């Protein structure tokens, strides 16, 4: 046993001695270990056969600078590496030469000098789609150097480096990018990097990039130029700046053309970006003036003098918790887009849009962490210029608005988030003319939200604070047709497609200000008619709500009257809108009350009085200003016909007003057709057709009245010549009742 351990001891000592001796020998003569042959054997041994590394000529030199400091030089001509398995990459270099000095004076050898390194004539092809996926190194560890490498490289002096890759091709996602790269570092000179790249995409798109970096002390300055072209779309950008431990300072300029049909060109000039690392992340600052060129307006809109260019300034300050913003880490800051004032001969405009960020970018689309604010305005200082400019065009302002003068302004101001937004807007008009006024305060809220698809809506309230409108001069006759008859429309053989339900809903309220009714001026009324409105226009285009004529004096039936109230409540269908009115006419010892109820198409009139008087008498007084007993037969018949027409709502509202405003000689009414024809005393015995439906009165029945006391009376009588025979006879008669 002792012998065994003794032998073992001698073997051990011998081994150690041999190892130490060997190490010392290698140290003294490193070329014994590192040489051409050993390198080739190492490549064959340690590099998988699927990644063959080849070279045409090699030269490996090892020089001992001292016992513990050795210089290694490697030089390869036509050095190539291939990925035979996945064909994910191939790289060939005309020359690869590498020199480094290793210092073995420490337990872990260190590199004291690196360089010259020369890799030139590179031809690299990389297909990212074929790269095998590698397990993630874990968050934050993707780019972390191994500690051993840090130890080995610590303190190394880097001498000349030249990396010249004239042909660099990268494929990913079916797209190919080609370029070149040159990195150069001279001793005692700053790092320099010149790179260029170009990429060819499908659909003929092409992008080019040149980059130039120079190390200047603790900072590096750079200059980038990029171009992109796809058909008519073009982008050109230039950036220069510096980056270092203190952060990034950059200035951008460039232009883009025809990226969007609504934007002809966008120019960015002297856009400044700074990124400053701070203790808890980085602060970003941006100030970017832009100019957008708008497309030519259609010929019909040219008259508005819309400017061709729009000036904007995008600026902002954002804090990121990390140097590079991440979708999952909150940002905090502001972005502002300011619109340069737009000034044309017709209008001025401007404003800004702001974005307040306080959350994670990944949640912005959910409405969290991003809030936008707008403040835009458009002002037309002189409406009359608009009228003049639009004269003769398809936008010509119609009468009676075209005589108005003054200004109006639209302002949109509000907050929104990216998921749902609210935009309040205001419209103020101050227009007037000799006999009209149009002062409107309108406020509206435009809302949108994206839950379940994009939906939007408008809720507007228009207050007519001072409006007076002049109607055209009308005659005491049936009014002209102002709108095409809805019953007469061209027939389309194919039913129009049902429109898909719109996601845009709107509601507009139109109302007058309390105490300031809308006033309608007409030659048929002695004074402006005061009207209160409280109408609502909904998404279906239906207008509903009350139109109220306020209490005001009027002349009806040639007597002074007062409209106590008259309310027209609009609804659909329009003919079904309700009417409720009361007119008071003082007459001697009593007051005649004319009550109008029913609908627009069939307003029924009740004539009563306080104290009560028979309706016949009241109608008689209204029509002829006299008691019924004093009327002739024709007039009494007219009274009866008028009562019937009133009761059945045979006259529309306009006809009722005409009827009440004209001196009536006689009125004929056919209850079966509800046709009303009035003979009025306006010279020539003018006949008016007052039927709401416009039908002509066909015949007059038993007695055709020709005048106050004359009529043609038709009857079926006994024949004088043939007693027993019934014949139809007519007599021209003078009639008197008493």
């Amino acid at each position, binding site marked *: 046993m002792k012998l065994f351990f003794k032998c073992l001891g001698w073997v051990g000592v011998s081994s150690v001695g041999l190892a130490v001796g060997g190490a010392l020998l290698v140290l003294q003569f490193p070329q014994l270990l590192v040489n051409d042959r050993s390198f080739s054997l190492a490549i064959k041994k340690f590099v998988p056969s699927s990644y063959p590394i080849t070279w045409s000529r090699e030269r490996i030199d090892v020089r001992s600078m001292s016992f513990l400091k050795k210089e290694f030089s490697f030089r390869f001509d036509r050095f190539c590496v291939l990925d035979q398995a996945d064909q994910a990459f191939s790289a060939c270099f005309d020359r690869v030469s590498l020199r480094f000095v290793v210092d073995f004076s420490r337990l872990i050898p260190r590199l004291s000098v690196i360089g010259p390194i020369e890799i030139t004539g590179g031809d690299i092809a990389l297909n990212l789609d074929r790269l095998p996926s590698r397990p993630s190194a874990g968050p934050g560890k993707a780019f972390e150097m191994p500690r051993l490498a840090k130890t080995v490289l610590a303190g190394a002096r880097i001498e000349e480096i030249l990396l010249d890759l004239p042909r660099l091709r990268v494929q990913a996602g079916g797209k190919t990018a080609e370029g070149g790269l040159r990195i150069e570092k001279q001793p005692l000179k700053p790092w320099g990097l010149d790179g260029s790249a170009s990429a060819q995409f499908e659909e003929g798109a092409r992008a080019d990039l040149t980059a130039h970096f120079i190390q200047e002390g603790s900072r590096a300055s750079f200059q980038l130029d990029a171009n992109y072209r796809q058909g008519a779309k073009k982008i050109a950008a230039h950036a220069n700046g510096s980056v270092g431990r203190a952060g990034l300072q950059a200035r951008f300029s460039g232009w883009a053309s025809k990226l969007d049909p609504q934007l002809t060109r966008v120019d960015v000039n002297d856009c400044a970006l700074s990124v400053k690392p701070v203790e808890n992340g980085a602060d970003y600052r941006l100030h970017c003036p832009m100019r957008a060129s708008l497309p030519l307006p259609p010929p019909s809109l040219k008259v508005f003098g819309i400017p061709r260019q729009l000036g904007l300034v995008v600026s902002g300050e954002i804090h990121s918790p990390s140097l590079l913003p991440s979708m999952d880490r909150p940002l905090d800051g502001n972005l502002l887009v300011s619109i340069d004032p737009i000034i044309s001969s017709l209008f001025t405009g401007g404003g800004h849009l702001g974005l307040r960020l306080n959350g994670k970018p990944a949640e912005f689309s959910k409405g969290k962490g991003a809030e936008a604010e707008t403040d835009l305005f458009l002002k037309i200082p002189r409406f009359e210029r608009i009228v003049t400019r639009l*004269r003769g065009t*398809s936008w*010509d302002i*119609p*009468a009676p608005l075209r005589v108005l003068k003054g200004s109006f302004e639209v302002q949109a101001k509000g907050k929104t988030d990216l998921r749902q937004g609210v935009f309040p807007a205001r419209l103020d008009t101050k227009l007037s*003319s000799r*006999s009209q006024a149009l002062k409107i305060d309108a406020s509206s809220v435009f809302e949108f939200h994206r839950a379940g698809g994009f939906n939007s809506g408008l809720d507007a309230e228009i207050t007519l604070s001072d409006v007076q409108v*002049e109607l*055209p*001069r009308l*005659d005491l006759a049936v009014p*002209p*047709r*102002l709108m*095409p*008859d809805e*019953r*007469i*429309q*061209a027939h389309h053989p194919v039913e129009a497609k049902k429109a898909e339900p719109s996601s845009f809903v709107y509601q507009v309220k139109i109302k007058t200000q309390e105490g300031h009714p809308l006033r309608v001026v007409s030659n048929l009324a002695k004074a402006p008619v005061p009207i209160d409105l409280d109408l609502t226009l909904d998404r279906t285009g239906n207008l509903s709500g009350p139109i109220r004529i306020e209490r005001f004096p009027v002349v009806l039936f040639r007597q002074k009257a007062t409209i106590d109230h008259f309310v027209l409540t609009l609804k659909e269908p329009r003919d079904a809108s309700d009417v409720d009115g009361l007119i008071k006419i003082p007459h001697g010892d009593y007051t005649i009350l004319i009550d109008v109820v029913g609908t627009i198409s069939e307003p029924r009139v009740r004539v009563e009085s306080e104290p009560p008087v028979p309706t016949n008498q009241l109608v008689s007084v209204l029509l002829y200003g006299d008691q*019924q*007993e004093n009327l002739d*037969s024709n007039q*009494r*018949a007219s*009274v*009866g*016909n008028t009562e*019937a027409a009133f009761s059945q709502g045979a006259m529309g509202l306009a006809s009722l007003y005409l009827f009440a405003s004209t001196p009536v000689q006689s009125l004929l009414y056919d209850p*079966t057709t509800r046709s009303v024809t009035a003979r009025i005393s306006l010279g020539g015995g003018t006949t008016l057709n007052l*039927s709401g*439906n*416009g*039908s*002509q009165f066909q015949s007059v*029945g*038993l*007695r*055709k009245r*020709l005048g106050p006391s004359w009529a*043609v*009376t*038709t*009857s*079926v009588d006994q024949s*004088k*010549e*043939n007693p*027993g*025979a*019934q*014949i*139809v*006879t*007519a*007599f*021209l008669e*003078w009639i008197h*009742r*008493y």
Partner: protein
Amino acid sequence: MAGLFYCAFAVARESEPPRTVLCPGLIVVGAVDPGMSDVEKRLVCGDSKSNSWREIPKNQARFNLSAFLQDRALYHVRFRTQKERLIVEAGDPTYVTSLTSEGAPPELELYRQRKVVGQKLTPALLDTVEQWTKKRLGTLGYACPRVKSRADPDTGEIHLVIESGPQQILMEIFADETPGINPGVLRRYDAFRLGRLYNGDNLVTTSNRVVSQGLFDSSFFLPSCRGNSVSASQQIVASPPRLLSLGAGLNTEELLVGRARWTESRIGQNASDLSVQLYGSFRSQQISSYLDAYVFAPGSRQALRPYVSIDHENWDAYETGTFSTQLGHETSWDNEDLGFKVITGPQLDVIRTYRGVGPVSSHFLSMLSSWTIMSHGFEFYGDRGAPRTGYSATAKIALANRSAYSSVSVQRLSLRWENLLNYRNYDPPLLVFGLRAGYDTTITGERPNFSNIYGVQLPPTYLHFLGGSQDLRGFGVQELPIQPPGTTAQNQIGSLSDAFVSMEARLVEVLPLGLEPFLLADVGVLGSSPWNVAAPVYWDPGFGLRLQSPIGVFRTTLAHGFIGATPDHLQFFFSFGQEF
């Protein structure tokens, strides 16, 4: 050469479409003057008297014009600008090509509506079509229909959407209370029965009866629908109870005809009425008076009708003076289709013959009964002065016996029937056929003949003559029977029986100016014995013209009489106020 050039120029001008300058900046081309009203012109050309409407921009003028020209059936209007002027090419008017409906009950028979297809398609025409349809449905029992029309300006089609609702029963009438009159009085004039199908025309007929009786100046019904039933409110305009009227008519038989009438209606709580009438013409004069005494229940249609009259008639054949008095019992009955009236009672006639064959003086106490049936259509359109449809029939019997204060025992029978037929029931009518027939006979033992004219005990008014506008229009009034040669005005003899048929076919609303031509043909026979008629046959073809004027109807006929195969003479007739 100049002439050729001028002709070419004139032709060229003629072929240019007409141009109407509405105002300096607006010209309408291609249509006859659209006849714009002053208001329409202002809304298109501007109003120099209104600051706000002084200038109308062209786009606004276009919009307004498009609406205005609709009223002229112009829907394919094109606008163009030429040297700052707006040229309006009016295009051709659209005419109606068809009239269809949906939802209509089968009995509506839309084809009846004339003067729609072929007319200009205007909003007013649509109103007329809607109103006609509602009215027509009202006569079929649909009291509250809804009718909406729509039309295609490209094709000219009119389509009606009809919601007729159920046919409705007229259940109740609410009448205004009239002071001094029992409620229910007005119901005796009803041309309908409650609980039967509603018919709007019958309500109008009822109103006409009330007015023609002189009861009130105006009466109308306001229907109100509720489910399957209708109730109507009767509104009346009370007037002073006494009516005095003086009227005139004329015709070639009696020349100028005058009538004076005094009526007091609303006598007593049951609204009895008393009437006195003077009637006069060149041929006959009459003073008459009657009292409709409603002495029974307020709504009862029964009345006692005392009547008295004094007549003087002076025809070619005779001249008589007659005093008549009757105490009749009158009643009537109506349903939704027809009315029926009966008057029965004793009548005393005292007749003096001043000229003609017959006793100088005679008297007859007869039991007279008169039965009249008349369709509501006949009455309705007759009241409107536009007879077109319906029928009327009357039967009169008078029985007198010598033993009962009568000069001679004699029974008289008179039948009349008239029927108007509207071809395909068009409205307005296209062709109205009229048929009138009559039969009279005097049953007596007397046999007036020329060999014993002085022995005739019957007064000439109890004999029968034909000729005149009421029967044979190819002969003069009471010209038939033809008297033997040598007969004088003193000894013309009538016949004991007669029968006739008159026919007429009238073209309505085709010619302009309201002219309605018609063809006529009449045929009649006479008989010298009771019940029997014998040859010769008298007949006459002819034609006439009816004119519906604003003051009444004018009729004229020209017919040629024939006796058997022998032509007789032309006969002209003219009247104002008389119908077929």
